[in-house]
């Protein structure tokens, strides 16, 4: 609400009254506008929140039965019978996420540091920035089909975790570069001055001063992008594949499809699983499996978001007062 809007309008000053300007009416009008804006904006936000909350509650409520069912979370998926689980998919989703981050975070850090600190302010840099922005809005199905043609077929990796991770990297890097670059550019000028005036090189300044200061924002950005990667389906359908061989956690033969750590095995993730059972599933309980999977996926992503805030805050606090 507008503060102080209840105050009586001051009497019109003589000079403005002489010019026919009614101060009291003007104050009434701008206060009314402010109130109207508050109401309209609150309604818009309320409407959006309502829709989001409804979706979240619906997904969680539909899948609630399976969400806490350990047999479902760790079990083996079924092709034709009911009672299938999502054990391999759950593991695949996390494994793929970790691999994707292992590849995309170092690349993004390097690129962002270069763009924020080293790149000369010229046409080439401007073009590179535009390209990165374009890449970040590339539809994920396009990334997926490119990955299919190039990594799966041309390089002969087959449907594999590594093909999926590289495809996800392609669409994660542009987002991460932007987030990290922004975080570095938001470091106050005074910090940069302090470092440079002490005779630190650009590299020392970046590593010892800018990165630590920007770290809360960087970590938050990475975790949020992890949420997106975790829920991605289109880019994975044709790269990591749609089959989830049962995993044997005692198997360390990196060439075996049952070895969880083998990066050349096909690996269906949670999001792809939802897509697959809904489009071609024949199990009798496909709705329950699909709802349960969706709920698990949603809970994971909510957890990522909460984690992002928590870690960001903790880092921030550690920096300002240990």
């Amino acid at each position: 609400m507008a503060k102080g809007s209840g105050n009586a309008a001051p009497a019109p000053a003589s000079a403005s009254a002489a010019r026919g300007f009614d101060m009291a009416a003007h104050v009434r009008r701008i206060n009314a506008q402010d109130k109207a804006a508050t109401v309209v904006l609150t309604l818009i936000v309320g409407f959006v929140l309502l829709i989001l909350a409804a979706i979240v509650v619906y997904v969680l409520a539909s899948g609630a039965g399976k969400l806490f069912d350990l047999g479902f979370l760790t079990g083996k998926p079924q092709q034709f019978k009911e009672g299938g689980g999502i054990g391999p998919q759950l593991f695949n989703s996390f494994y793929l996420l970790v691999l994707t981050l292992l590849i995309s975070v170092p690349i993004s850090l390097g690129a962002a540091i270069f763009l924020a600190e080293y790149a000369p302010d010229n046409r080439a840099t401007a073009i590179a920035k535009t390209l990165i922005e374009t890449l970040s809005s590339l539809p994920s199905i396009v990334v997926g089909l490119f990955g299919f043609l190039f990594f799966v077929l041309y390089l002969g990796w087959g449907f594999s975790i590594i093909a999926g991770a590289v495809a996800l990297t392609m669409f994660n890097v542009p987002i991460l570069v932007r987030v990290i670059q922004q975080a570095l550019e938001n470091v106050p000028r005074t910090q940069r001055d302090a470092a440079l005036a002490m005779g630190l090189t650009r590299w020392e300044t970046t590593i010892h001063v800018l990165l630590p200061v920007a770290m809360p924002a960087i970590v938050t950005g990475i975790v949020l992008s992890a949420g997106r990667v975790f829920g991605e389906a289109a880019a994975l359908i044709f790269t990591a594949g749609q089959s989830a061989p049962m995993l044997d956690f005692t198997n360390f033969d990196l060439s075996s499809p049952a070895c969880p750590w083998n990066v050349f095995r096909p690996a269906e993730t949670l999001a792809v699983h939802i897509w697959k059972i809904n489009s071609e599933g024949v199990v009798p309980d496909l709705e329950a499996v699909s709802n349960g999977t969706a709920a698990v996926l949603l809970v994971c992503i909510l957890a990522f978001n909460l984690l992002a805030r928590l870690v960001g805050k903790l880092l921030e606090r550690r920096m300002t007062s240990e």
Partner: protein
Amino acid sequence: MISVENFKLWYGDFQALKGITLEVPKNQVTAFIGPSGCGKSTLLRAMNRMCDFVGGVRHEGSIAIDGRDVFASDPNELRVAVGMVFQHPNPFPLSIRDNILYGPRRMRRISKAEGDEIVECSLRDAGLFDEVKDKLDQSGLGISGGQQQRLCIARALAVDPQVLLMDEPTSALDPISTGLVEELMLSLARERTVVVVTHNMQQATRVADRTAFFYLGELVEEGPTKRLFSDPREQRTQEYLTGRFG
């Protein structure tokens, strides 16, 4: 001693310094005064080559510190010998101890005992030791603005610079902190050359042995502070001091 010889500097097409010649004596406080945009900060930032980071900068003439041409030196080496304190306190997001040891640790390995000694010495020189001695491991960002500024001074002192450049070091501070920093300038100048840019003419009279008045990129007048304030030789100096412009 800092000798500035016919020094000119341009930002793009704008000439910010128009041929400055000036001797800044060793182990004294010299104040640069003048209205905004007169070039005093620009000259200060040329002395440790912080001007290098501004796009489109060009300069002519020379600046030498103890006979060494600053523009022929390695800038990072130069900035270790020529410390700088800024208008806004800017400690690193590290503990108070690590802030001070940051500079020394870059140059050599510092043992725990030696580190403690450097921390205590620098903090004592900056008049801050008694206030923070129990929280050396807390963040340098967690203390008051005036304390942060003295921490920045201590950080600069830890590498034992010959010259300390101060760019309006008290303009963001309260009167009590300002007083402390001013006392500090006087004591620091016993062993090093201090150059301070200030908007506050009273500050110049309180701390500076010599004062230089800049106007529109020129050095109008330079001399012992007492003489410059009581008996300015140039009309523009007199007009500025009596508040007729600026």
